[in-house]
């Protein structure tokens, strides 16, 4: 939204001299092992003339802690006070409190009004700097800088791309269930900076990001006609996607952003179509006397996973991008729905309904290796973090007045409530922001 306001420069060169260590850092996390022991990390308040230094380190610590892979050390245990982050720390002071990694930094207000934030990540047992980076931004973007630093730390230590500098678009729900008010809303992945994107009495559902995070496609009942829309985040401009006789729903972008794939209801049936956003031509991909919906592209754009009840119950199917080769991939007990292809391409997340419960699970694109990550009265609608390691979904507990957002690691561990000011559903994770 504020991308044009944001000017971030990464100046690696300034710190290369200090980060002369070889590539064999002692500090690393193998996140493919499942329930890993979180890595103790000391995140010091960035040196600054005001509260900004402490604020930034707090956001970094919260990001890393929520990932489940890091255990920020209590600041009260710190022995050394970092007053000059350009000096190497006294490593033994950090080793003795068992901080295996240490983050130091500084925030300075430049004369042009910009914020300069710099940080260093230290391996306390190897006694060396792992990375050092510097960023410039407008002061109102300080949280983004903190997320970018958290991503750099996560990446250096896990070897995986970070996911903290991202946003979530979702449906904010308020009021009684029989007369729900729904708004599209957007927030940072940690729940900060919530903004409403719509304010109408129309039912709005299933928002999803475009690949450049600048557009949302969603469904709205505006004017009593349930249809798929596009919303430009920067301008707030909205438009209907196509002019079809029936209801259009379940939209998602193609990975290249050129098409929207969605369902079109025709009488009692629903089939899957794409619409090219430039030429406005539509292409029909399925033609069954059934409900085919919830299509999601593979990251290379060559295949599509979707759900269909053509066999009697909702099951997952994969087809080629032109609609050919439709093959069922889910065969377990119960019904499967809302498939979403991982940004890494290796897995498909889904909702599974079985035995009166709703689960979030993953399987390989050929249907093998099904794993259930979490089960409750009602879990629904998985969405992937851009690194394919974390899944967000919404949960409605029995007897609860409304749904809330949760995240869970691909390993099935580290389930976390994602705080929202009101009830929330239909989360969609953005790609990493530019």
């Amino acid at each position, binding site marked *: 939204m504020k991308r044009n306001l944001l000017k971030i420069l990464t100046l690696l060169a300034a710190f290369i001299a200090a980060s002369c260590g070889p590539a064999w850092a002692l500090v690393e996390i193998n996140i493919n092992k499942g329930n890993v022991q979180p890595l103790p990390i000391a995140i010091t308040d960035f040196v600054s003339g005001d509260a900004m230094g402490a604020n930034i380190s707090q956001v970094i610590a919260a990001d890393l802690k929520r990932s489940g892979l890091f255990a920020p050390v209590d600041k009260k245990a710190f022995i050394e006070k970092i007053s000059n982050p350009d000096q190497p720390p006294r490593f033994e002071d950090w080793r003795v409190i068992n901080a295996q990694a240490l983050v130091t930094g500084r925030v300075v207000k430049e004369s042009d009004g910009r914020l300069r934030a710099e940080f260093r990540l230290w391996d306390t047992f190897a006694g060396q700097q792992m990375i050092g980076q510097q960023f410039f931004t407008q002061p109102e973007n300080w949280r983004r800088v903190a997320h970018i630093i958290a991503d750099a730390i996560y990446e250096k230590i896990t070897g995986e791309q970070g996911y903290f500098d991202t946003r979530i678009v979702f449906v904010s729900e308020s009021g*009684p*269930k*029989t007369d*729900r008010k729904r708004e599209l809303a957007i927030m940072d992945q940690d729940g900060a900076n919530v903004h409403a994107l719509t304010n109408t009495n129309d*039912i709005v*559902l*299933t928002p999803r990001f475009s690949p450049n995070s600048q557009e949302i496609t969603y*469904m709205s*009942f505006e004017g*009593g006609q*349930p249809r798929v829309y596009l919303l430009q985040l920067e301008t707030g401009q909205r438009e209907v996607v196509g002019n079809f006789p*029936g*209801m259009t*729903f*379940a939209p998602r972008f193609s990975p290249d952003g050129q098409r929207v794939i969605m*369902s079109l*209801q025709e*009488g*009692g*049936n*629903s089939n899957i179509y794409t619409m090219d956003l430039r030429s406005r031509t539509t292409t029909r991909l399925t033609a069954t006397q059934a*409900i085919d*919906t*919830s299509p999601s592209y593979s990251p290379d754009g060559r295949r599509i996973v979707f*759900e269909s*009840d053509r066999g009697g*119950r*909702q099951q997952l199917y994969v087809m080629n991008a032109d609609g050919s080769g439709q093959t069922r991939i889910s065969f377990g007990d119960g019904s499967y*729905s*809302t498939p979403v292809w991982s940004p890494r391409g290796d897995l498909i997340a889904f*909702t599974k*309904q079985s035995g009166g419960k709703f689960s979030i699970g993953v399987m390989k694109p050929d249907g093998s290796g099904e794993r259930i990550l979490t089960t409750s*009265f*009602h879990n*629904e*609608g998985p969405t992937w973090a851009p690194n394919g390691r974390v899944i967000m979904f919404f949960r*409605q507990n*029995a*007897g609860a007045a409304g749904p809330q957002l949760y995240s869970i690691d691909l390993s099935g561990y580290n389930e976390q409530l994602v705080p929202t000011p009101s009830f929330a*559903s*239909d989360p969609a994770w953005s790609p990493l922001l530019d």
Partner: protein
Amino acid sequence: MSQTMNPGMSRMQKLARNPVMIATFLALSLAGCASKKGLPDNASELGLGANGAAPGSSQDFTVNVGDRIFFDTDSSSIRADAQATLDRQAQWLAQYPQYPITIEGHADERGTREYNLALGARRAEATRQYLASRGVAANRMRTISYGKEKPVAVCDDISCWSQNRRAVTVLGGGVSQ
């Protein structure tokens, strides 16, 4: 019987082409006569039914005919009890041809959102086809699905879910409560 045939002969001649309709019309008339016995004078003078609904009003339709039918889990089959309701709806709509209708399809909460939108559409369509088979003109009917987004009963057990799996016939294209 002749005194119950208050409508003009031309109307009766039309109805005569459909024996089912005539029988039902007579039955409704007789029922109306019987129930009038216990009515207060003022309601009787106003020409209202037992429940105060003016014949031909939307309240009459909702209360005396029944504006909604219910479905089994994940099904869009019109059940026998639903057929009886839709038969009454078709007769009433034949009697009051000024109303266009909107058929709303709904699903319970025990499904996923997008599928339930499609399931609600399937239920609305099944209802529309049934009413069409009972003589309601296609150009009077539109359908809309609300999926699981507009429940009327909000407990977390089957007593509520079974009320939410419904198709509601709304007169004049409005929105049901």
